[in-house]
Every structure is written in C-alpha cells, then in structure tokens.
C-alpha cells in the first residue's frame, strides 16, 4: 500500500473512532435528538435498602 493511501486510511479510521466514541458513548445523542422520548435514568449502584 502506498504511503499516502495508508495515511489516508488511518486518518479515516481514527476520525471515525473519535466521532463514534463521542456520539455513541461519551454523550447521550439520543436524548439530544429526541427530547420528547421519555428517558429512564438508572443508578448503576445496586443499593440495597437496609435498616441502618
């Protein structure tokens, strides 16, 4: 593979990785685009209600 082609390919990969990470994982794009949709917020901590 030519040098330019390889650089272009890797640039695309890194670009899509950053884009995908930000939109799929870092932010809640669903909530921004569909605000009317009811969102269920959950706590990841499984808290057991105890007496104390």
């Amino acid at each position, binding site marked *: 593979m030519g040098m330019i082609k390889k650089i272009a390919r890797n640039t695309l990969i890194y670009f899509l990785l950053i884009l995908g990470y*930000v939109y799929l994982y870092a932010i809640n794009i669903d909530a921004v685009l569909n605000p009317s949709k009811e969102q269920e*917020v959950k706590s990841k901590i499984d808290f057991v*209600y105890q007496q*104390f």
Partner: protein
Amino acid sequence: MLKKIGVYHLLPFIIACLFFFISYQLIISDLIDNNVDVKPLETKIISGAQTQLKDRYARLDNDNYELNYIASIKNKKQITLFGSSEFSESPYVTYNFLPSKKNAQILGVGHAHHQILSILIELLAAHPENKGSKVVFFLSPGWFGAQGTNSEAFVEFAKPNFLNRIVNDSSIQQKYKVHIGRFIDLKHSEFEGVSISMNYLRGVYLDSQLSQISNTQLEQFINKNFSGTKHKAIIPKVEYQLELTYLTPPPSIIINYDSIAHQLKNEFVANITSNNLYVNDDYYTKYLLKDDGTEREELITEIDISTNEEYQDFKRLVEYVKEREMEASFIIIPYNPYYFKNADIYLPLIDSLTSTLESNNLPYYNLYAGDTLSYDPGVLTDVMHFGDYGWMKVNKYIDSLYYGND
C-alpha cells in the same frame, strides 16, 4: 520505527482530531441546533383537584401524587412533612394523628433514604407555589453518617418532571442549580442514561467551575458543547394546574397530649422483655441479637462537618427555606444512647444544626440525647425510629407551633 509511528499513526490521529473539531463546529452543532428548533416543545400540563389531605406518599410515583404534593405545598392550610424511615403507618404518626383528631390537613412525603438533597429538589420544583408554605423537616442523624444522598435515592426521588421544572424556572437562584449539578457531576459515573435536565444541571455546575481546572479538556468540551447548558430549549416545561381543597377544622379541640403520651410510654416500657436498651422485642431479636445469642454492639463514627455532604445540603436547604419565607420547623431525631454508647460524639453536629437554625430564626424541636441520662426512653421504638410516645411529643409540638394549641 519512531518515524513510522509518527507518519502512519500520530499524524493521521492529529489530522483526524482536527477534522473532528472542524466538522463539529461547521456541521454537527448546527444539525443538532436545527433539529432542536424544528421540534417546538409543548408544555406538559398536569391538572386536577387536591385530594390527598392526610397520610403519606412514600415516593411521588405518578403524576397524581406529584400534583397532590405540589398542592400540599401551595395550600397554606396544609402542612407538608418531609422525612425518611421513621414514617410509618402507626395512627400516632403526625400525618395520621392530627388529621383524625382535629381535621388538620397534613401530608407526609418520603421513606428510607429520602434525605435533604431530595427534599431540596422537591421544594425547588414547587418554587412558584412554595412562598410561605408550612413545612416540617425530620432530620435523622443517620443521614449525616451516610455522607449525603446516594445515587440510587437520587434517581428515586428526583422526579424527571421536578428536574425539568427546576431547569426551566429562571427565578430560582443559580446557586441551587449549581448545588444539584455538583451532586450529579460527583456521581455521574454511577448513573446510566442521564437525562437532559440532569446534564443541564451538571453543565450549570461545570460552567461555574470553568475557571478551575476540575475536568480534562476533552470532557469540558463535551460537556459544554453537547450536553451541558446548551440544550435548555429542549427540556419540556411542566405546569401543575391545581384546584386546592380546604377542610373546615372543628372549633379548637384540646387534646390531652401528656396523658396519652404517658400511657403510651408505660405500655412501651412494660412490653419490653428481651432487653434493657428500651428497644422493642421484635426489632431487638431481628437486628440486635447476633446468631450466637450475644448482643450486637455498634458505635457512631465521628464526622467532619466542614466536608460532610449532608451538612452542606442542610445549609442550602436552610437558605432556601429562609429565602422563600416558609413557615418551617425542624425535628431532630435522636439516636438511642442505650445502644449507641458514644451518641455524644454527634453533639457538636447537633449544636451546629441548632445554632444555624437559631441564627435564622427557624423553630426546631431537638430530641437528640448525648447520653442515657438526657434520653427519654420510649421516644424511639428501636435505635433510631420514633415510637408512638415520640410521635406524641412531636404532635404536641406541631399542634402548638402551627395551630397555637398546647
């Protein structure tokens, strides 16, 4: 080798980052904003008549409960009680006793882990309705030991409608929003599917912190641009249209608190056979007796007021209550010093609480006891929850404070 990494990986990575920032600035942010513009949001209206004039909501589970809660705050003839696990179904609990005896309008809100931050959020959500409201707060010492509200309780009590209302209410002072946002930021890794209003409040906090380096650059960028304060426009407005209900109380009925209380206390003490801690038998055998038949022992851990989350929440709550000129009072629940042998360790905390309340001219009823000498057996049914005798003392206090009877 290094050259290869530089040319084939570092360089593409840098170009990709540049592309990302440029494309974000040029296209994607526009796309989101436009998308927001084309969807005008309707105000969510919850309407109805006030029906709940006594008893308690463990949690504000549905629109009707929310409506009745807001109505309870707005109705100046009704008292709203905020508390946690001491709230029970006993007929002597204030929201049962006073309504049945003298037709008083009293609603309780909360169950275990309903702590000050959740209460503050509930009050803020009723900002337009809460000027001069009658409210009573039951402060458990355990809240301060738990280091503030936990994320699960927040999810349970900070209702989406309430958060949306707080975000959209511009007359609420920024410092309260920052306070909630700080909590969300602190616990954000513990939440799943964070809502836009939570992100907004977190954004308010982060904006207030921008001068300080508290987050990585990337995180700040993300928060500011994607999910922070930018998208307030898409958070739905919530409105409660209320029709308040007023009961006519029968002409001043005098209740002989002392004799009922005295009787309850004697019954309570007489019924205890298993221990001399003044703890009811059921609770004692269930929680205080270890498998080997010996008694459990527990000490209170000392807390540092200056860093205590719950104490910070308390100070904010007092500020807000003052600001809204509420007819507020505070009940300080004790620990059973027969069981917690070092209950005196919390005395400085209790002093700080009472002196804060005094300096703000807020009435309070302090039942906390640092040792067995100052403790009145029967106030608690176990080690931290009011017994019927305790409730009668509270009822007497509330009756005299809000209805002017002794």
